[in-house]
């Protein structure tokens, strides 16, 4: 399961990252690294980019980058 397939309001923890894309490396500098917990909050007009909560702050990225992050979903409310 990747970041791009989380449902609205669902939380996931990053487990693995495909780091070959330089854009993905930039996202890692912003804190999207293994162990980071994200919550999918909404999508922009047209369904892309996606907005996530990361440690209480909002970050947006496109689906094509979100697919490089493998996550394991957390039970809601957890």
């Amino acid at each position, binding site marked *: 399961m990747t970041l791009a397939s989380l449902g609205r309001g669902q939380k996931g923890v990053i487990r693995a*990252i495909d*780091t*070959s894309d*330089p*854009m*993905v*490396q*930039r*996202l*890692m*500098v*912003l*804190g999207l*690294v*293994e*162990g*980071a917990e994200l919550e999918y*909050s*909404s*999508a*922009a*007009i*047209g*369904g*892309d*980019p996606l*907005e996530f909560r*990361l*440690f*209480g*702050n*909002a*970050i*947006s*990225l*496109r689906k094509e*980058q979100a697919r490089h992050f493998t996550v394991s979903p957390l039970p809601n409310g957890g």
Partner: protein
Amino acid sequence: MAKPSVTRVSVDQITVSRRPSVSIAVVGNPNSGKSTLFNRLTGLRQRTANYPGATVEKHVGTATAGTAVLELIDLPGTFSLSAHSTEERIAVDVILGRMPGTNPPAGILAVVDMTNLYQGLYLVQQLMELELPMVVALTMSDAADVKGLRVDIDALQARLGGVTVCPVVATTGQGIKALRQALAELPGSPQPDLPAFWPELNKAAEQLSAELQGSVRRIEIERALLDSSGETEQEILGRLGKDRDERVGEVRRELFGDEPPLAREARYRYKWVREILDEVQQRAPPLITWGSRFIAWLNRPGPGTIGLFVVMAIVFQAVFAWATPMMDAIDAGTAALGSFLASQMPEGALASLLSDGIVAGVGSVIVFLPQIMILFLFIILLEDSGYLARAAYLMDRVMRSVGLSGQSIIPMISSFACAVPGIMATRVIPNRRDRIATMLAAPFMTCSARLPVYALLIAAFVPAESIGWMNLQGLVLFGLYLLGIFAGVLTALLLRVTALRGPKSPFALMLPEFRKPNLRTVLMQLWGRVKVFLRRAGTVIFAVAVIVWALAYYPRSDTVAWELAEQQAVAEASLRGGALSETLQQLDHQAAADQLAQSWLGRAGQVVEPVFRPLGWDWKISAAVIAGFPAREVVIAVLGTVYALGDAADEATLAQRLKSATWPDGAPVFTLPMVFGLLIFYACCLQCAATLAVIQRETNSWRWPVFAWFYMSTIGYVGALLVYQLGSG
């Protein structure tokens, strides 16, 4: 008798000069409240310059802390010391002391948003490796309270090797005194007792530095090893000599294995950040208020989009409705001043210069100050509240369909105020093709200098009827804004499939929370804008008004004056009463029109008239348009002066004078098709030397500004031609 008391002060305690002795770099993430804090610390003692070779503004201010006077350098926001955009690169170069013309910082003020310690501490860890004295300011501690965040300051300080940490609220000034105190003690204070973050990296860099006989500092080599793509990095590693690729590759393999260095660095440092957060930060459930619920609702895409359009519609209404009383007052004031001057002085060149040249010319531009203030106020509020960043996110998909990314939205919205800062704002766009396409689309956005031209023509020729809750004048204005957006977007699209064809650019953005704009910051920015406008009115527009007046007043024709005197004598001999005064008035108008037509301006206008005749313009408008090419708002001043000298001078305001302007055969000049053509010409034409100059500077070539000028002028001319010819049947 009491002895006079004498206090002895040792020499080193006397402050002789208030010149700052050391510089401190103010560093932080974007949106961390860095600039608000900088403004709070330095007040109005700031100056703005440019960094060499770049148009990025350098903000330097002076702050007093106790007896110390410090120079603070407000750097562009950055998330890490591995730079990706021009602005980030400049921040990093200043921090590392590599920026020519800027003092290497003797200390660092790290600004960390308390609600975003996660990303803030990542940068702090990198900064600590510089081994410079440092103070950490934790901003937005009030917002952290609302979010239910508790930070154990003492524990954080201990984890940061004893660096002073000051919680502050920059908007209210809370905690600023303690921060000043910490800054005063900063220069010369012992370097922090660093925890060893990454001993392997430090060691490898130390070794390479030794191989270079210490000509490159350890920290620079560390950055170079981590950042494999940067130019500076290539340059630094290039000094290692001919076997450098092998040597560097070996060191990198040892340190990072198969991972890309940046990925390795992020994993490494964020592990440390999470450990600290677990120890120093506690989260309570956030305070849910009606305000926070409303903001959460506005953050959703649907309401966010609707909100953006509602805000824009209110702006256009406000620009027309709210500004009217103030504008009427200024209009009446200049009209009264003009006629007062004319009545107090003997008729002649001086009286004409003052009332027809200066008051009519400059006054007709000053009138638009209220509208421009309202427009700037809204743009500043949108930016300060964090709404513009959200617009970038919301519109990314839409912008991608025209070959741009959401990041192009911010420069385009700023261009509604002025294309010059708009084009400068394209610096945040990392992709060069996107950036140039955005720069060429930006001048189509209706800027505040087009507004006076639109406002004048709309107020004079579009009836003030209401359609639903909007009035027709507001709707026409809105339509012109839409036309600008459409033309700009189409231009970007055409460029992205032709000259600027290339891969789509990536997109990632931190979305700042909506926050209440800070009154102090908003007013300081607004005042800066108003100052620029008034300075232009007082210099460029003043000069143009005087020159245009002289061109339109001289040479005085004796023939016209004799003919007037002759015909006056004939009329006085043959007519009586009302008929006489009417005829005399007509003769006056005729003489004024004849004088104007044979003036230098009249002659020049008649030379270019054939070019603009197909658009329905007479020589007066043609001359005004030509004069407006360096700065488009000048056209108003020119029309103001020309019509004050001509036959329509009896009317009180410029709008009324335009309405009564006629061709020699008596047909009105300003017909609806002609007015709409003129509006379209103004919507498209690039009549702004400052915009051309800034495009040249930002692209570092004359090709793009020259292309933009011809392209936009052609569209404007053809558009006006079509509207006039089709409209006039």
